[in-house]
């Protein structure tokens, strides 16, 4: 017998509802090296301080896509992967080693379309000082309680 995720429905989301924040451990240099290897982004700006100094960032900065990875982790805790239709972000700030990122979200739109419950949410990643690193949105197509799965 198939054991599904805890069922999540369109009706479980309310307009303007805040979604449970996800706080990550502080970003560290080992994580940046690990992310470079995993993603294939070997730009030395992410692991060689001198390159950061030259580029004017004052040292190494995290890969934007790592922070989008944090956003993806938070979003797929809010809506199961199978219902996620879109994730889009704009990178607005630089993340440095030691920054502790929290991802927050909020439901900004809900509508029923072609028998699916479309939920649109805002997603923001910011550090402990409130500096925003990325801002974006996600869309999920969720089943309705009134229709059989």
């Amino acid at each position: 017998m198939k054991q599904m995720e805890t069922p999540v429905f369109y009706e479980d989301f309310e307009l303007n509802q805040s979604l449970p924040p996800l706080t990550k451990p502080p970003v560290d240099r080992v994580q940046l090296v690990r992310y470079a290897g995993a993603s294939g982004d070997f730009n030395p700006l992410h692991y060689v301080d001198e390159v950061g100094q030259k580029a004017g960032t004052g040292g190494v900065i995290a890969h934007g896509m790592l922070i989008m990875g944090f956003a993806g982790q938070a979003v797929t805790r809010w809506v199961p992967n199978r219902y996620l239709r879109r994730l889009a972000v704009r990178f607005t700030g630089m993340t440095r080693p030691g920054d502790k990122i929290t991802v927050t979200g909020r439901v900004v739109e809900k509508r029923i379309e072609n028998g699916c419950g479309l939920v649109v949410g805002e997603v923001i990643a910011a550090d402990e000082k409130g500096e925003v690193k990325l801002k974006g949105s996600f869309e999920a197509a969720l089943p309705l309680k009134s229709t059989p799965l």
Partner: protein
Amino acid sequence: MSSRENLVGRELCRFTYLVERGKIRELVLAIGDDNPLYTDPEYARARGYRDIIAPPTFGTCIDLWGGMDFTTLCSKLQLNPVKVLHGEQEYRYFKEICPGDRIEAVCRLSRIIDKGKMYLFILETEYFNQEGELVLSSRHTIIERK
């Protein structure tokens, strides 16, 4: 700039990437995402998937390991690497991506926008699996500071 304008609307590159279990694991370990759907095949199968699945930002691995790495991109778009930033990223999800999938990616330069102090390059990529099904699409905005 003019020779770059000639690239607009054209296919920049096309490449094939074989999805590996270990690459998915490396990526989620780096992110620190402990969702077992990415690492535990039994857990994923019990939830109706054919195997573990790729996380939402796996497209970056397909691009960078599949053939569109940073150096290639800079050379194709004639970008100055030290002036380049990742501005925006959008993914649309159509179907799950699992280990063993052979993904064909087709990348097109859709627009170049002159914003005064910077240029924006909009890249659109579509990812198809071995069945020819569209599984993922990406809209990637590159900033080149002037």
